[in-house]
């Protein structure tokens, strides 16, 4: 198999806690692979391990045929990174940020200069070329960070929550760009806790919780493997009472969360007939999605 990243049994312990606990991954060329999980699931630590920024307590990593972290430097020549937190150079313009970053890869000024128009175009920042970073909007900064990650024309791009904090327009533009990258054969590894992002972008996903991968596959496989295909959400003050008395008879499984009841079914027909008997209840019938899978696998309670 043409795998770009292979990780076996990664373990990372911080202060006695197994932040990454036995993770194995194989990511192939040209795919967009997503690490999905609640805050603190170990997604960012996994990325840092794969990049060789930290050393695992045990386990084995290969990135672009280089052993990690031993030969991380060589591997990173062919890798781009979009970090979770903005770390652009605030003293520099858009173009200067790209120039300075390219030099870290040992590129000559002429070769970076030659790539600038294409990178600026890709980031929709051609008109902002000589503008200083602090005056850019959040979406522009993200796009610049993405362009910066591409300065060395990498084979693999790591993105840690690439659209967190962006408005919908900015987010859609980033998604479009990421799809263009996979269309060009780049391999993407991203972390996210946005289900729509994972569903739209990722060919394959690993759902993480408590440092482990609890399910892995394409978005469709994850839904098919983990959950009933139909969901009916029932709302209203009487929803909880209705659920207590009737839901079990018409569903494979149901969960009550506040004034909403989530009913999971293979065939929604009998349930919908039942609900029509209860005009006091409102409901929505929809196919199961990744968020249902995610909540089933990682639970509904808050993670803080």
């Amino acid at each position, binding site marked *: 198999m043409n795998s770009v990243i292979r990780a076996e049994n990664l373990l990372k312990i911080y202060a006695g806690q197994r932040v990454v606990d036995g993770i194995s991954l194989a990511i192939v060329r040209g795919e967009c692979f997503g690490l999905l999980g609640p805050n603190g699931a170990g997604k960012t630590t996994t990325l840092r391990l794969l990049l060789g920024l930290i050393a695992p307590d045990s386990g084995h990593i290969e990135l672009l045929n280089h052993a990690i972290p031993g030969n991380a430097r060589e591997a*990173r020549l062919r890798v781009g*990174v979009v*970090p979770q937190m*903005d*770390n652009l150079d605030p003293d520099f313009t858009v173009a200067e940020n790209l120039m300075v970053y390219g030099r*870290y890869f040992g590129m000559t000024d002429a070769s970076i200069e030659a790539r600038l128009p294409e990178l600026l175009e890709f980031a929709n920042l051609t008109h902002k070329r000589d503008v200083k970073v602090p005056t850019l909007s959040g979406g522009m900064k993200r796009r610049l960070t993405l362009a910066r990650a591409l300065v060395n024309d990498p084979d693999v791009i790591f993105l840690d929550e690439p659209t967190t904090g962006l408005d919908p327009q900015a987010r859609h533009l980033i998604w479009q760009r990421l799809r263009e990258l996979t269309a060009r054969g780049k391999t993407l590894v991203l972390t996210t806790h946005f289900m729509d992002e994972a569903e739209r972008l990722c060919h394959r996903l690993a759902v993480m919780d408590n440092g482990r991968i609890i399910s892995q596959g394409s978005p469709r496989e994850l839904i098919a493997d983990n959950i009933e295909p139909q969901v009916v959400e029932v709302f209203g003050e009487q929803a909880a009472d209705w659920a207590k008395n009737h839901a079990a008879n018409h569903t494979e499984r149901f969960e009550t969360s506040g004034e909403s009841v989530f009913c999971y079914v293979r065939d929604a027909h009998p349930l919908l007939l039942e609900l029509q008997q209860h005009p006091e209840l409102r409901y929505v019938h929809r196919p199961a999605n990744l968020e249902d899978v995610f909540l089933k696998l990682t639970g509904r309670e808050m993670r803080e």
Partner: protein
Amino acid sequence: MSKNYFALPQLSLRFLPIWRRNYMVWKKMAGPSILGHLADPVIYMLGLGYGLGGMLPEISGMSYIAFLSAGTVCYSTMNSASFEALYSGFARMHEQRTWEAILNTPITLDDIVLSEIFWAASKSLLSGIAVLLVIWILGLAHSPLSLWIIPLSLLVGLCFASLGLIVTALAPGYEFFMYYFTLVITPMTLLCGVFFPVDQLPAMLQTISAMLPLTHAVDLARPLLNNAIPVNFMTDIAVLAGYALVGFYVSLVLFRKRLAQ
């Protein structure tokens, strides 16, 4: 990054693009920076040199302002490197996350720490040249030996940059740096012969003084500005270089630990 915090540093020229980055940032604010490097020593030398010096007889066979000029070179270069390694270094490491961005490229932490040391030493070099110009203009030194102040400024810079980075590696925030300046830098200024000869101090303090790097910087600078070859120049250079090397290694180990979190 190393699995082993204590591995010896791996030196390469990869630190040069980072040095260049810092130079690009500095260039944008070069005016105020150069003014600071010039104004500070001028104010000290004129104020103390003529003000205080007018009341004093010759010290060690020279006018007080000439005596003070050697101290000022060392004190200014020490301060330049220290401020850069502490405040600006901390901003790059912590606040602006510049290091984090660089570590995602084929540059290692060893390269980054080396770049910080050479960059801070470059600021010392600039500061040393600025003070030397003032000394020449005031007619306080005439001999070509005074040109040795230029490489000395770089060495003093390397020494205090490395020591300063140890503090940066340990610092939780900017407030922490007050400890270093109040408990280390200021006493060092008073113990090392910047403002008055070390032999004015009680014997015990003289012993401490002999171990401090700034004393050895002053021991080199003062004769060089007075047209003489420093008596123990090998020892003085060795002490300054020794502090630089130990500081580099210790700070690197501390940064490796800090960034592994």
